[in-house]
């Protein structure tokens, strides 16, 4: 019906697309993307705010979603229908199904089990599983997860508070005396002294921590510290816990961590809750001491290039339609219409790896917050919470053939070995077809970091494998703790196609010996 009406916006709608020209040349831009991935809007439950805080695929092919105003709803794809099964939750940002039909939902104040005890399909028991953590009432104290580890334990991430606001008069739990005195948070001078609280602060229990929660007893143990805004928790195919974090103070660019028990991941605010902490104000601890404590991120998402606010990591399913991407990690992004693949490896015990776009398409819009696969279909739930983003849901389906794209990347003693989804043309053997930017980000209290010590590199040597599917490049230098941002736009496949995503950034932490 809408096409009947004249629309002043038609010109704009089409300007984003570069559909196939009539001369037989391959399509580019949105037209090319749509040959490989089909994006479709999915209506949320009618009449409710459609900002999505949580999504999870259920074993029976349905989808569970939690929304900004506190509803949990189940989507039945066969009938395209939603059923609201719970209401009244406070900013739920994670959901997990349990055996027996119950759900675990993380809301601001607690981890809650939603139970239907009378079999009518609606939640009638909101059971508190775990609420033994602090709430200062600061808006930024979001709670993320839970995700379930290989051993059945749950993992939850607790956001730091933001100096963008103060704390409530009434707080829940213990107050850490380390740092700006509490009365200053209530004073008329708050705006002036707020930076002394730390840009992001952890004055109530377990803020900035990843917690391990036993779903049966509700007992929680502190698992790892040093997080800032850990919106995305997930596991790779080997069961490593992945946590994404946002550019900001102590985060030169957005990052993805491989989180291990007792690890410290760089943001010092959470240190006040370490059992062995000496009482030092984290803001005054020398960077050298923090540096010695911390495990750097496995992957940097270079800011304004790849992602400014990465979200939930999920695994691409191993189905024919997803082909060689199956088993890789996919992650969403808030500030640009992008989904990225994350390609990681462990080198001498150190995790590192690369990010590369899967899709960068205006059709996705922004705020790509929560991801879940049902079969081949990726469901994406968007949010904004008044920041950059959007609302509602979309689906993305692979159309059967992967685009010509970088498939995987591994570091070598002198460079990188990059696999592609299709054979490269012979011209790729020319080092001039490759260009690489090398830069790093500062670890400092300031908000974000510019790219530092930036240099452009050209490979000294390029060797193609027999199948031409793999290129090994050697670089004139290779430095640990630098990003290697590879520009692949001059490469062509054997059939003359450019990569759909012609840029990938590898965060090098450890140069292998061989």
């Amino acid at each position: 019906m809408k096409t009947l009406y004249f629309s002043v916006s038609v010109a704009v709608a089409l300007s984003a697309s570069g559909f196939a020209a009539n001369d037989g040349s391959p399509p580019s831009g949105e037209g090319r993307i749509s040959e490989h991935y089909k994006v479709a809007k999915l209506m949320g439950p009618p009449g409710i705010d459609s900002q999505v805080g949580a999504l999870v695929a259920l074993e029976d092919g349905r989808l569970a979603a939690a929304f900004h105003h506190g509803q949990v709803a189940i989507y039945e794809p066969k009938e395209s229908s939603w059923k609201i099964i719970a209401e009244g939750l406070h900013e739920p940002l994670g959901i997990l199904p349990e055996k027996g039909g119950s759900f675990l939902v993380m809301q601001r104040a607690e981890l809650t089990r939603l139970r239907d005890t009378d079999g009518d399909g609606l939640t009638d028991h909101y059971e508190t599983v775990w609420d033994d953590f602090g709430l200062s009432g600061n808006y930024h104290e979001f709670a993320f997860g839970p995700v379930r580890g290989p051993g059945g334990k749950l993992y939850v991430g607790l956001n730091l508070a933001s100096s963008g606001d103060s704390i409530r008069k009434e707080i829940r739990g213990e107050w850490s005396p380390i740092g700006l005195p509490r009365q200053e948070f209530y004073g008329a001078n708050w705006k002036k002294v707020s930076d002394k609280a730390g840009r992001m602060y952890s004055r109530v229990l377990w803020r900035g921590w990843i917690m391990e929660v036993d779903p049966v007893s509700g007992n929680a143990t502190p698992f790892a510290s040093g997080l800032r805004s850990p919106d995305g928790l997930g596991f790779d195919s080997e069961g490593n816990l992945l946590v994404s974090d946002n550019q900001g103070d102590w985060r030169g660019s957005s990052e993805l961590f491989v989180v291990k028990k007792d690890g410290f991941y760089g943001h010092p605010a959470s240190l006040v809750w370490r059992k062995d902490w000496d009482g030092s104000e984290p803001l005054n601890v020398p960077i050298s001491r923090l540096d010695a404590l911390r495990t750097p991120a496995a992957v940097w998402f270079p800011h304004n290039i790849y992602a400014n606010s990465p979200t939930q990591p999920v695994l691409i399913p191993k189905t024919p339609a997803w082909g060689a991407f199956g088993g890789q990690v996919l992650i969403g992004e808030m500030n640009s219409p992008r989904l990225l693949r994350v390609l990681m490896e462990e080198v001498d015990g150190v995790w590192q790896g690369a990010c590369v776009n899967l899709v960068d398409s205006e059709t996705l819009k922004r705020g790509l917050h929560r991801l879940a696969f049902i079969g081949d279909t990726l469901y994406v739930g968007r949010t904004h919470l008044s920041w950059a983003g959007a609302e509602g849901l979309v689906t993305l389906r692979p159309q059967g053939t992967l685009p010509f794209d970088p498939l995987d990347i591994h570091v070598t003693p002198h460079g990188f070995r990059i696999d592609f989804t299709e054979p490269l043309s012979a011209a790729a053997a020319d080092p001039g077809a490759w260009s690489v930017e090398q830069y790093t980000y500062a670890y400092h209290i300031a908000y974000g970091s510019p790219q530092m010590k930036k240099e452009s590199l050209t490979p000294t040597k390029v060797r193609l494998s027999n199948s031409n599917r793999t290129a090994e490049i050697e670089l004139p230098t290779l430095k640990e703790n630098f990003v290697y941002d590879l520009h692949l736009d001059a490469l062509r496949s054997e059939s003359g196609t450019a990569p759909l995503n012609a840029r990938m950034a590898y965060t090098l932490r450890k140069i292998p010996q061989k």
Partner: protein
Amino acid sequence: MHRKKSVPLSLLRLALFVFSSTTLAPRSFSEPVLSTKKVSAEPGKPNVTVKMVMRDGLRFDPPRFSAEPGRKLVIELENEDSSHQSHNFLLIRPGKLKKIVESAMALGERGPSQSFVPQSSDILAHSAVLDPEKKSRISVDLPAEPGVYPYVCTMPGHGMVMYGALYSGVILPAIDKDPNIPPTAVQAMLPGGGRRPFIQRMFLPNAGPAAIAVSLPGKQNFCWDAGECRLRYVWSGTGVDPREHWRGNGKDLAKVPTSPWWNAPIEDFPFRFGSPSASVPKVKFLGYRVEAGLPEFHFKVGAIEVFEKVTADDARGVIEFHYKVLRSNEALFYRASDAEGAKWASPAGLFKGGVLELTPAQAAQFSVTLTGPAIH
């Protein structure tokens, strides 16, 4: 990334700009986001800019807002209707809503060619038809006369439900008593669509951060604090107003629209086991069960499990607390002092000096009632 194209259309008095559909994040259920930008031609009278989102269920969001008479008003329209419907926007002179909707319907097949906008001097400004996910902007010089100026979508079948009200120099009535906005719009802004009973967790004033707002059937509402495991205050009338809290990232608290008629004493807890002078017990929240929409809270007082259900009887004028105490062999001293005209009583016995003493057997299941001045 920010492709901004201006496609000026000279449609009557309005200037219309089209943006790419990806820039501004829509805010949900927003009360007017009134920003004043100093771009006005009239010195001292900055423009008023309001974002107006078209949503599913034939709704304008916000369904009402206010702006000073005589100001230049800029309305940033966004069609976010997830049911993929196109909409338009007309701002109309006071009292002329019905007339304009009817004349738009009468356009019949001429409708599409004129954006479903009838010719009328009662239309102050209007947009073109806005397809889903599109934005546009109109501006209008508000008349100097105060009044309630309706706005409406006149797409076929939309006009009867998809409207709102611009209050210009007129005080806004309570949201649930506003005759100038559609009931559907009000419902979309209240927890549970204004349904009673309803339970909604959110940041509430004068409570801890783990608060729960409960609207009981009838008139009463209360704030239950899951951090302290006790009811904090009771108010009559409209339930909690979540809009400030839900608008964005949660920085603003929800509002309690009327003053509570009863507030729990600060930092006290009604239960003392064993002795009336025992210290304040530690509590632990265990969740709640929902029966006929009403919560039964479950918590521990020390090692003792307690269930608490709160009901109201508007006819008798009481709030009733129903307790179950599991496996306690200690006397229970229930502390509740009459205050602010609110009186406590219990079928289980008399309050003496603000304390009700119960034997373990009595405490296993008992109720107390609170009668307040505000219940009639």
